C-alpha cells in the first residue's frame, strides 16, 4: 500500500461510491450475479407485459359489437366490428391517408434530416454546430400543441403568410386544414427525432473515408451515394422506422392542422372511444393499426435485417 499521511481521506465521491457498492453487495450478493441482467430488465419486461395485457383486453372488446338499444357491448364474440371497418369507405380513406401520410412524412423527413445531420457532424466551426442544435431543439422545447397553434397564427386565413401575400397582390389562400398542411406539420415535428437518430451513425464515418473516396475519383454526389449513405444505413433505417411509426399513429397534428377534415387512424379511433363510445369498433381499428405498424417494422427487419440498426450481428 502506498504511504499516506494520517489525515488522508479519499474524495467524497469515491467514499459514496464505495458505500453504495457495499450496500448493493448486501442486498444482492455476488452469487446472484448470473441473474443481475434479468433483474435489470425486469421493470421493462413488466411494462411490456402490462401493454400486452391491455392489448388482450382490446382484442376482447374488438370482438363484441355495441348493442345500440342498451348501449352495452354484446355478450358473444363476432367479427362484425372488423367487417364493418373493412367494408367502410370512410375507414378505407382514413387508412390510405394515414399510410400515405406516414410514407410521405418519412421520405421528406429523412431527405431533410440527412443534410442537416451531416452539416451538424462535419462542420469545423463550433458556433455553427451550436446554432444548428439550438435551431433544431427550439421547436422541440415548445411542445406540440403550442407549435400547432403557432402554425394557425402563421398560416391562418388572416395569418402572417396570407398578409404578406396580399401585400404583393395575391389573394388569400387556404393554407390550413388540408393534407399538405398536415404533412408539413408532421415533417416539422419529426425532424429533430430523425436528425438525432442519424447523428451517431454519421459521426461514426471517418471524414478521411470521404476524402479517400474523393481521391479515388468520386465527386461529392457519388461519395454521398456510394460511401456516406451506405455507411449511414443503420441511422437512416432507425430514423425511418421511428418517423414512420410515430407519424402512422400520430393524433395531434392531423387533429390540429387538419381541422377534422384530415383524420388519420388515431383520430378515427379517438372518435370511436370518446365520441361515439363504440369501444368495439375503436378496438378493432386499434388492433388493425397495431397490425399495420408491426407488419411495417417486420418488413424492414426482414429486408434489412435487425443487424442494420447496428445491434451486433451482420444480418
Amino acid at each position: 500500500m502506498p504511504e499516506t499521511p494520517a489525515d488522508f481521506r479519499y474524495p467524497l465521491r469515491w467514499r459514496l461510491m464505495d458505500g453504495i457498492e457495499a450496500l448493493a453487495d448486501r442486498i444482492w450478493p455476488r452469487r446472484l450475479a448470473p441473474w443481475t441482467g434479468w433483474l435489470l430488465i425486469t421493470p421493462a419486461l413488466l411494462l411490456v407485459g402490462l401493454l400486452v395485457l391491455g392489448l388482450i383486453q382490446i382484442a376482447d372488446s374488438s370482438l363484441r359489437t355495441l348493442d345500440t338499444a342498451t348501449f352495452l357491448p354484446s355478450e358473444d364474440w363476432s367479427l362484425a366490428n372488423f367487417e364493418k371497418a373493412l367494408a367502410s369507405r370512410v375507414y378505407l380513406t382514413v387508412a390510405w391517408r394515414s399510410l400515405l401520410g406516414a410514407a410521405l412524412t418519412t421520405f421528406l423527413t429523412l431527405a431533410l434530416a440527412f443534410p442537416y445531420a451531416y452539416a451538424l457532424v462535419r462542420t469545423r466551426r463550433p458556433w455553427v454546430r451550436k446554432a444548428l442544435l439550438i435551431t433544431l431543439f427550439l421547436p422541440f422545447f415548445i411542445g406540440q400543441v403550442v407549435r400547432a397553434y403557432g402554425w394557425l397564427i402563421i398560416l391562418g386565413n388572416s395569418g402572417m403568410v396570407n398578409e404578406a401575400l396580399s401585400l404583393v397582390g395575391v389573394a388569400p389562400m387556404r393554407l390550413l386544414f388540408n393534407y399538405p398542411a398536415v404533412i408539413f406539420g408532421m415533417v416539422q415535428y419529426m425532424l429533430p427525432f430523425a436528425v438525432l437518430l442519424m447523428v451517431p451513425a454519421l459521426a461514426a464515418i471517418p471524414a478521411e473515408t470521404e476524402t479517400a473516396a474523393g481521391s479515388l475519383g468520386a465527386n461529392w454526389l457519388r461519395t454521398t451515394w456510394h460511401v456516406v449513405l451506405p455507411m449511414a444505413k443503420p441511422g437512416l433505417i432507425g430514423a425511418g422506422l421511428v418517423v414512420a411509426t410515430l407519424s402512422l399513429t400520430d393524433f395531434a397534428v392531423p387533429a390540429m392542422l387538419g381541422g377534422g377534415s384530415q383524420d388519420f387512424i388515431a383520430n378515427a379511433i379517438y372518435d370511436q372511444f370518446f365520441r361515439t363510445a363504440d369501444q368495439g369498433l375503436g378496438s378493432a381499428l386499434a388492433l388493425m393499426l397495431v397490425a399495420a405498424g408491426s407488419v411495417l417494422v417486420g418488413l424492414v427487419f426482414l429486408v434489412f435485417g435487425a443487424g442494420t440498426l447496428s445491434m451486433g450481428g451482420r444480418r
Partner: protein
Amino acid sequence: MAAVRSEQPAVVVQGVDMDFGTGAMAVKGASFALEPGRFLTILGPSGSGKTTLLRMIAGFQAPTRGEILIGGRPADAVAPHRRSIGMVFQKLALFPHMTVNANVAFPLKMRRHDPRTIPARVARYLDLVRLGGYGNRRIHELSGGQQQRVAIARALVFEPDLLLLDEPLAALDRKLREEMQLEFRRIQKELGVTTINVTHDQREALVVSDEIIVMDHGEIQQHTSPVDMYRSPANPFVASFIGVSSFLEGLSSPRGLMVNGVDCAGVAAGAILPGMPARGAIRAEQTRIGAAAEACDTVLEGRITDTIFEGERLMYFVDLPALGTGVRIYHHDPAEHAPFEKGATVSTGWNARDLLIFPAKDR
C-alpha cells in the same frame, strides 16, 4: 503509369508554410523537387509535419504560404476527384460496407473504365499485393496487414501519376513490414509511378527509397540519397535519426575536436573554424573496441558500463573517463560474439573520417 515522361519534375514544392494557428508552424519553408518515377521517403519523428506536407501535396489542404506544382500545374487547380493521385491514408480509410473486390474496383468505376475490363484488372492488382483469392471477403474479415494491402491495391489500381503513402506499413509486425517494404520497391519499379512515402522508420527509408527527406519541427533538414544520408548527414539531428550515433561536445581543433582537453581526430562536416564550440557525431558501428581499436587514429581507455543483446550483434555502453562522457558501440563478430564483460576496461577508438564535426549551434 507515368507514361508521359515530361521534362519537368513530377512534384515541385516551393517555400511552403503551413500554420494551423495553434503555436509552432506544422511545416516551415519546405522546398524540394521530385523527378518522375522516383521513390521519395519523407522521414521524421512524430509531429514533424510529414502528414501535413503529404496532405498539401495531395491537395487536401492549402498551404499558408508557398506553392505546390504537380506535373507543372498548381495542386489545387484540379478538383480532387479529377487528380491522378493514389493515396494510402495513415488510417487506411477503406470502405467497410464493400467487399475487397468492390473496394479495389471503386476507383475504376468512378473513373468510368470499361466495365468489362474492371474484374480482370482488380484481380491483377490483388495478385500484385499477394491477395489473390481474397476478393469476396469483407474488409472486417481481413487481418490488419491484409487490409493495408487492400488499401495499397486500391491506390495503385487506377495507375495514378503520383502515389502518396502515409505510413502504410506502420501497423505491421517487423517481418511483414520488411516483406512489404521490398514489395513496395518491386511494385514501384514495375509500374514506374512517382511515389512519396512517409514514415518514421529509418530502416524503411533506407531500404525502399531513391531519395530521402528528413524533417524535424516542420523543417526539411536534408534531402539526398539513402547512401549520402547515411554517410554524410547534414547536421547532428540527421546523424542521430539515421542509425545510432554518440555525440561529443567540445571545441573545434585543427586535428578535429578538443574534448575535455583531449584532442580527438575528426573531420569537419560544415563551415567551422578552429576554436569554435562544436559537436562531434560518431556512429556506433564505426566506433571500435578491443584489439580492433588499437590501430585507430584516436585510441582511448574505456570502461564497459552496460551491454545490450540485439541478436546478431551487441551494443556496448562505454564510459570514456578522459572525455568525461560515454559512447555506444556496436560489436558484430560471429567468431567472437561477446568478448567483453560488463565492467571490463577496454581500448576504444575511431578513425578520423568517422567523427563528423558540426558547429554546435546546429541541432
